[in-house]
């Protein structure tokens, strides 16, 4: 890249890309739990808030481990674990205001928690009883989007709607709103994601592009998607890009908060790269041993997003050990309820699907539904169907 005639060399502009995130990494809480200063960003909440973050982080991880267990026991078809990404999600999720709207991928269980969504509602999609059990509009949290990148355009369009509703740049903190679009490192290669950057930039839409760079897209390392630090992508589209330590809940909160505020004020989009690591498999169906070495894992264990908060709380005597036990206990209860609720999730009725295709159903579907109903009735409990006999 450093060819004079083709400068500016990226190195000169951004400094070299370094292991561990490089000098551009914004950090406010070290892995050891020490607060550090950053010239541009400060965490402006008190220790009570950090205490709350700790609870959020633990509860979120517990939801995740319980769901993983449920999958192992065959109660879920699949589960996408967020292990290691809790801080990125809680930090950004807690920066949202009521009137803001979040567009998740399929992994934002921590953000859902911040939106006040009953974790049980997250399980439906993975158990196969629905495609998301919450109310996306009431909870201001879109349904999980599995088609990579598609939601970034939805987020941008929604943000354009906020502009048209006069919900941006009014100066009224209860009114000014913004959107956050979640996506992964792999998603940055999709046309849709890049188109959303163009729309957001051209229309100056109030959207924060929050990319959790967990270093992997299933088996593909980040090098398959980019040869420069991801946050620099934004510069090519004319809006700022920042890299924050995604395992640092304080920094993630501070940066997302500032980016959201910037959007709410009408200053346009920001790209936030939360530099983190996918500690688990891509999903419960995946086998990472086929494509990555455990050294990385060990290395990242030392940067655990929860441990550093606990270290901070303890070192500064913010909480007694009792608090940890309390939270543990609360997490146990949550997990137990989650498990109980999961097993009780009702299966959908095959006949209902016909009514859910359209707001105004069609004669064709009515007919198919009626025919299918008759067909189902044809199996009286007494006589078994051939296939049941076959089994």
């Amino acid at each position, binding site marked *: 890249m450093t060819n004079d005639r083709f400068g500016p060399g990226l190195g000169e502009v951004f400094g070299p890309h370094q292991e561990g995130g490089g000098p551009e990494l914004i950090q406010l809480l070290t892995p050891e739990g020490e607060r550090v200063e950053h010239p541009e960003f400060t965490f402006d909440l008190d220790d009570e808030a950090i205490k709350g973050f700790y609870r959020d982080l633990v509860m979120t991880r517990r939801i995740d481990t319980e769901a993983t267990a449920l999958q192992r026991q065959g109660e879920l078809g699949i589960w996408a674990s967020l292990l290691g990404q809790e801080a990125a999600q809680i930090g950004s999720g807690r920066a949202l205001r009521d009137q803001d709207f979040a567009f998740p991928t399929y992994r934002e269980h921590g953000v859902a928690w911040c939106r006040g969504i009953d974790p049980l509602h997250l399980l439906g999609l993975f158990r196969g009883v629905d495609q998301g059990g919450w109310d996306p509009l009431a909870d201001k949290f879109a*349904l999980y989007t599995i088609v990579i990148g*598609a939601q970034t*355009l939805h987020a*941008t369009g*929604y*943000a354009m709607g906020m502009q048209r509703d006069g919900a941006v740049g009014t100066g009224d903190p209860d009114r000014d709103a913004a959107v956050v679009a979640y996506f992964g490192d792999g998603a940055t290669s999709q046309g849709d994601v890049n188109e959303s950057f163009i729309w957001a930039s051209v229309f100056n839409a109030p959207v924060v592009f929050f990319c959790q760079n967990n270093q992997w897209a299933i088996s593909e390392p980040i090098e398959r998607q980019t040869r420069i630090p991801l946050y620099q992508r934004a510069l090519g589209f004319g809006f700022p890009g920042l890299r924050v330590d995604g395992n640092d809940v304080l920094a993630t909160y501070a940066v997302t908060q500032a980016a959201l505020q910037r959007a709410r004020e009408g200053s346009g989009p920001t790209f936030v790269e939360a530099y983190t690591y996918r500690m688990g498999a891509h999903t419960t169906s995946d086998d990472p041993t086929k494509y990555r070495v455990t050294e990385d894992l060990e290395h990242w264990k030392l940067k655990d997003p929860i441990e550093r908060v606990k270290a901070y709380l303890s070192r500064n005597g913010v909480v007694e050990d009792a608090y940890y036990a309390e939270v543990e206990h609360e997490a146990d209860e949550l997990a137990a309820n989650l498990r109980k609720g999961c097993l009780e999730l009702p299966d959908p009725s095959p006949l209902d699907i016909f009514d859910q*295709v359209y707001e105004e159903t069609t004669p064709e579907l009515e007919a198919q539904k009626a025919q299918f109903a008759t067909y189902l009735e044809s199996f009286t409990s007494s006589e078994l169907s051939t296939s049941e006999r076959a089994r």
Partner: protein
Amino acid sequence: MTAITLGKGVNMGLRAAMEADPSVIIMGEDVGKLGGVFRITDGLQKDFGEDRVIDTPLAESGILGTAVGLARRGYRPVCEIQFDGFVYPAYDQIVSQVAKMHFRSRGTITMPIVIRIPFGGGIGAVEHHSESPEAYFAHTAGLKVVACSNPVDAYWMIQQAIASDDPVVFFEPKRRYWEKAELDESIEPEGLFTSRLVKEGTDLTLLAYGPMVKTCIEAATAAQEEGKSVEVIDLRTLSPLDMAPVHASVRKTGRAVVVHEAPLTLGLGSEIAARVTEECFYSLESPVLRVGGFDTPYPPSRIEEEYLPDLDRVLDSVDRALTY
């Protein structure tokens, strides 16, 4: 009573919809100052402003994807795809997002999006500008698909499509944009998802939509001179299909020919033939025949008249059906 072109009918319908409902917005390439390459949105940005008539960046997936977000925010986007052949970059957003959102959310989210597509050939255009992709959408559960064939329908159907809380792919027969008809706004329109008998006959039923309706009426008229009584139905709605009038007609005539510009294989004709045969098996005196574009890409325009079904090709099939 004023005589308007089909293009003007859409334009007037859009204007009426925007006046009636402030949540209606128009998005697309060149829909603003230019008024669209076919001038269908002519004058709308001037009167409704840049916030409601949006010249978008040049990317169809972006248009549909942001429309999904706007719809979720309570808007009713009307997206213009400049030409039929350019809808494919938006196919993923249409098939996986627009079409499935209501189902995925068990009805909590509606997608009142209209996708306007000028379609079909016959205007001497270069490749990708003369295609008939309607079957790609009619095969997609969650979408509704209609095609207008005349100025009056254009005016009413676009308003009905915009009023629909379900996504509607709205096909406009571009080579008929300049066809004229009298519009009497005092006459109430039928429902959007209904077929219409446009010419009565007793010997055979011609089924068509969009640009081929005119061709079929001409064919029926020509057949009349030869003593053949041909009935013509304008299907108007392609998904859902309104088969009741079709079945009634075929039970009467015993013969049917489906006509469209789209390639034969898996075109609408195949579905209609299959359904008619299922429903009217004992009334059929000949198999339902199909006249369509050939199973090739759209040819260079100098031979498009040979490629497209025309009066003679329709009459040829009418004769084949009658003498079967």
